[in-house]
């Protein structure tokens, strides 16, 4: 599974997104401010799921709104973490 497919799968699972919203998630889909389910609890849960999936750790101070601007920015963040580990 590619990083994009994996990240989207985690988002759908964590946010419990319904069929239509889940199917519409793509690289440029906006997250923060566009999906009501995306709150601070969702952020922590998504990051925890990514940490468990990929084995990296995200420090609290790394958490920034820019990471969650779109699906693509989140994927880029994951790729960046993987390249550093």
């Amino acid at each position, binding site marked *: 599974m590619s990083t994009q497919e994996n990240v989207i799968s985690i988002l759908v699972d964590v946010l419990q997104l319904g069929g239509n919203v889940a199917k519409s998630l793509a690289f440029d889909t906006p997250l*923060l401010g566009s999906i*009501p*389910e995306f*709150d*601070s*609890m*969702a*952020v*922590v849960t998504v990051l*925890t799921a990514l940490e468990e999936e990929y084995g990296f*750790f995200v420090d*609290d*101070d790394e*958490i*920034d*709104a820019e990471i*969650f601007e779109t699906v693509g920015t989140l994927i880029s963040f994951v790729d960046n973490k993987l390249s550093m580990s």
Partner: protein
Amino acid sequence: MIKKIIALSQQIGLVNVYLYSINRILSFFPSSKLIKYFYVAQKLSKQPLLSAKRGKNIEIVDFVNSGNHPCPRPPEVINDRYKQGATSLIAYKNGEFAGCLWYIKDKYKEDEVNCLFELPANDSVWDFDVYVEPKFRLSPVFLKLWDYTSDRLLKEDCHWSLSRISAFNPNSLFSHKRMGAVIIGWAVFICLGGIQVTIANVSPFFHVSFRKASFPVFRLKPPE
């Protein structure tokens, strides 16, 4: 515009969109508004929402009223909350004010509309004005505040936290639902100048107030 209305109605329902529209119209008139609340009950849990590895640089303190409360509210509102017997917990992240949470036992006089919330069950508190500084809204501040409050209240034999949330705020509705909050009632307040009409699906169901000293009293209990 149509797309926004459709999106909002999918999030909060068509009835609430109508009510929200009425509120927007009323806002052009002095001292007039339409507010709808959902009353929710949240069971407190020993299981923290935040894992132990997170929020290590967030400190929670009990803020005693000494003036200069960091929460961005008018001083008279802050003073009134303390006068009512409310407790205020403040979160500091790396020493910087990050957020606050208020709760009160027994009863709470609402400051947005003219009503009183009473808690006849002695295992409940009323939580209100959970505020997080914008720059920390994605951080674990809220979860740390909530876990700290839950832990403290459970030790005091409180098992439920009741609150009111705006029916026009889909983000708040989703967040509460995600945390397991259940809706125990709703109320609509139509304020026209000095007159307030209240319609609710919980007692007193209907109330008309022509002056500040007259207000509906909601006695709210967690679900059985």
